[in-house]
């Protein structure tokens, strides 16, 4: 780098630039949090949905699946699972009847032994997620 560009100039760019863009990030974050009620479907965030999120977390579903594209890429996207499978009952039945010892040679979801209430909660959670406005992602029903 040329001699005219000194270390203190570089330092000032670092401090000034990072400060400025950190503040900009804060402003944008604040604005986003303020406008989330328009997209995040919070009017349907019931206690059962909140419980379903805990079931989702406590069984580490994200360790195989994606949810709105984030997670592991081993098993199908579930942000739109409610739409793809058509109903809460279909989701519940799928989770409930997974074979304990898997399927020979194939990937299989573990049997999590969820209670009926937990099953309902997690299905309710997936229904809620499917109704979040996330800019029409994924591109089609296959996720």
């Amino acid at each position: 780098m040329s001699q005219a560009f000194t270390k203190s100039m570089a330092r000032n760019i670092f401090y000034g630039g990072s400060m400025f863009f950190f503040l900009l990030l804060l402003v944008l974050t604040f604005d986003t949090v303020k406008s989330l009620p328009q997209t995040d479907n919070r009017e349907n965030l019931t206690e059962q949905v909140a419980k379903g999120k805990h079931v989702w977390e406590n069984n580490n579903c994200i360790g195989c699946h994606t949810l709105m594209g984030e997670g592991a890429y081993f098993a199908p996207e579930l942000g739109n699972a409610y739409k793809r499978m058509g109903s809460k009952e279909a989701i519940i039945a799928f989770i409930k009847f997974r074979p304990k010892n898997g399927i020979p040679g194939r990937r299989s979801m573990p049997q999590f032994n969820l209670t009926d209430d937990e099953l309902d909660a997690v299905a309710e959670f997936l229904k809620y997620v499917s109704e979040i406005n996330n800019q029409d992602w994924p591109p089609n029903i296959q996720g």
Partner: protein
Amino acid sequence: MKYTSQMVAKPYFIAAIGLFIGQILFGVIMGMQYVVGDFLFPEIPFNVARMVHTNLLIVWLLFGFMGAAYYMVPDEAETELHSPFLAKLMFWIFLVAGALTILGYLLVPYATLAEITMNDLLPTMGREFLEQPTITKIGIVIVALAFLYNIGMTILKGRKTVINLVLLIGLVGLAVFFLFSFYNPDNIVLDKMFWWFVVHLWVEGVWELILGSLLAYVLIKTTGVDREVIEKWLYVIIAMALITGLIGTGHHFFWIGTPGYWQWWGSIFSALEPIPFFMMTIFAFNMVNKRRRQHPNKPAVLWALGTAVMAFLGAGVWGFLHTLSFVNYYTHGTQITAAHGHMAFYGAYVMIVLAIISYAMPMLNGRKAANSQLSQIVEMWSFWLMTISMVFITLFLTGAGIVQVYLQRMSDAPLPFMVVQDKIELFYWLREGAGIIFLIGLIVYVASFFVGRDQPEVELPK
């Protein structure tokens, strides 16, 4: 080695390498599960293997960063470490907590682990990369604070260099942003958004400061280039990293329920994120070309150049490939993401930790500056085996990803996820093969510490 307290770095480095081996073993298991779906099922389901794979990566990199700091900070500050005892104590606390957490993942169902660690009191588990029980997270915070205190006090009482200062800013940022892992609202959109304040602001933010600082240190030591020049480069690189990376967070806010304007902010700023990595490559090669002395430790220089190149390719180029929102709309959450993740982490963070270990270990083992000829040759073999196999892992996953995106998201008749997975099986077999070569490379790497121990170290003619 000028200061005896630098010795505390050694157990950190050994633990880092030990956990690295565990990480790769579980990587190979997962690679197999991608093609033989019931491999080790139901004993080690995929989600457990993945948790072990990613958590071990994070923990061993943290061990590496801490060891690096304990080695470098006293040397730069020209004073003994504030409290070697505290450093040793924290080592054991971190190691035991980490080992218990991994055992917890492997020995009991995750839901049971959540129950016995009383996750309901402060639910933080079950989110990608932040799967650790809340009690472990609290432990991480305590270890991080004690570590920061130790490093901070050392810097405070000694010579203040830019390299130390940048490292300190990076480490403080690491600790501060980790606190967002305790925020887990019921609202999934808010949860996801602030989850990125840990994950993105770590790996595309403050960790880049740590990377830059460690790279600058290794380059000063091995090339003898004037400190003024290196520090100027360091400032410019980390300035660009934060200027692009902070708003670059927006490329994670495209499809998670956040407002549409993030597609503009995220695309534009994250498209600039390769710049600091490109500068890092230019910087590393420039400094090595302008070196004022030969250094007898060739593998250390090789790792330093390697990290600059591979970070640019993995984080810069492979990141750019899918960062524009109209591309990401189709590639989001596919094997393209996995391809990028693998090469970026290896290039930016694995290799810099291995660079500093390579530089420091001979001294920690009582040598003057370098290992024996034989040990260096074996280490450089491991460099090429691991690096080239990682390039192939990335290429095979990219191939898998392109076909996946087409069949599942772009063709006229999109196919279901699992149907597509069957169709891209060949790529997964090839990736598993490359993964096994990576494991062999890692074994060769470990061997480099044990061969040629009784042989004299490489010395350059005066």
